[in-house]
């Protein structure tokens, strides 16, 4: 890398950093409101609480029910942190039901591009699953996994007039790589040993949503009454593709169609969990979420970032 290339790169980063505008709390870019999606992490930093996110699915290993909690807090207008914990209940055929917490997860996210005109947002994030903080019997790993990721969001409000009915469409997504801190685990029994490999995993997915509120307040008031006027049909697609260690290319994932209803202080979401192949499962599950907008509920406590102000 030449000095000129390095300087050009620094200049680009500086221009991007200077051009960042403070975000207006949860999910807003200009006139677009993006709801918090249930499966794919959205690109926003926000003061929010998901309590609970409940999912149920039957797999070849048994029935799994998860109760998840996530709290997010803005530190500055464009940087936020989150903490996530999941209580897992497994019922495997012929075994005693097992209940326990998964590993604690913590994350940080920085919004580095925000274009109100083009309803576009880009963020970088780092998620850390802290190994050994959960119960091994419910699948919690003894090692940590770090996942750097790029998050994006784009509303289609800038589409031309002839296709104005598509303007309520928006997409959000994520592209990241899960980096386990341990390459393999060896389990030794009386007369044998079993090796489990932990590959690097490409984590990718996106959500496509059609906002009825956007349709009625920006494009055309078609007269839909409550509660339909606050509904956002959504389909989320979430995939995991191992990259190495003997499992390369064996993608798993789910397609999750559903509905989000976004109110003034909270939103409710309900989606189906449909495995994309046999490796991902054979049964359809369900996921539901109650999600609070803390900055609206408690503006004196959560209405602003810890530093730097901004609404």
């Amino acid at each position, binding site marked *: 890398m030449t000095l000129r290339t390095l300087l050009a790169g620094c200049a680009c980063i500086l221009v991007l950093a200077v051009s960042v505008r403070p975000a207006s709390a949860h999910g807003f870019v200009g*006139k677009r409101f993006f709801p918090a999606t249930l499966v794919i992490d959205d690109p926003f930093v926000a003061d929010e609480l998901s309590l609970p996110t409940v999912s149920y699915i039957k797999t070849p290993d048994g029935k799994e029910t998860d109760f998840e909690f996530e709290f997010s807090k803005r530190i500055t207008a464009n940087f936020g942190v989150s903490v996530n914990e999941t209580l897992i209940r497994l019922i495997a055929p012929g075994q005693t039901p097992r209940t326990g917490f998964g590993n604690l997860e913590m994350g940080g996210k920085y919004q580095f591009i925000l274009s109100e005109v083009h309803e576009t947002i880009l963020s970088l994030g780092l998620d850390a699953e802290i190994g050994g903080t959960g119960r091994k019997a419910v699948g919690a790993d003894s090692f940590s996994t770090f996942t750097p990721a790029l998050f994006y969001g784009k509303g289609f409000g800038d589409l031309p007039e002839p296709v104005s009915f598509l303007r309520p469409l928006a997409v959000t997504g994520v592209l990241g790589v899960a980096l386990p801190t341990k390459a393999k685990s060896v389990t030794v029994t009386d007369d044998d040993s079993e090796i489990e490999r932990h590959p690097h995993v490409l984590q990718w997915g996106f959500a496509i949503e059609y906002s009825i509120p956007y349709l009625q307040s920006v494009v055309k008031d078609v007269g839909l009454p409550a509660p339909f006027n606050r509904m956002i049909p959504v389909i989320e697609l979430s995939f995991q593709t191992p990259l190495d260690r003997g499992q390369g290319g064996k993608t798993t994932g789910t397609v999750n169609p559903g509905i989000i209803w976004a109110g*003034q202080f909270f939103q409710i979401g309900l989606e189906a969990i449909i495995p994309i192949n046999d490796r991902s499962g054979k049964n359809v599950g369900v996921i539901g979420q109650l999600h609070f907008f803390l900055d609206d509920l408690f503006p004196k*406590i959560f209405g602003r970032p810890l530093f730097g102000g901004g609404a």
Partner: protein
Amino acid sequence: MKSVSTAVVTLAILLAGTTVAGAHAFLERADPRVGSTVRTPPAQVRLWFTEPLEPAFSSVQVVNETGQRVDKGDPHVDPATPRLLRISLQPLAPGTYKVIWRVLSVDAHVTEGDFTFRVTR
């Protein structure tokens, strides 16, 4: 499981005891309606929001297809209905008009938006 239930109930009680205020102001409805076509030129544009507005920091303007303002420059929040923002219009010729608004709800959250309506003969 019992400890989780206790934690949830405790959190709910704590949250319930904390100050609760307003939220982001979404456009609930408008007159003329968003994306509508009207035969009689309206004398004003009225916007109803989901939250009470801060009059000093809430505004609206109306422009024609060339970007010229066609309102009378008197945007104001209705004193009797703090969720209603209105602005008077000059006599409108047939054409397409854009309403551009930006409001501050009473809890200091800014929202903005725009929409068009058409006037025909």
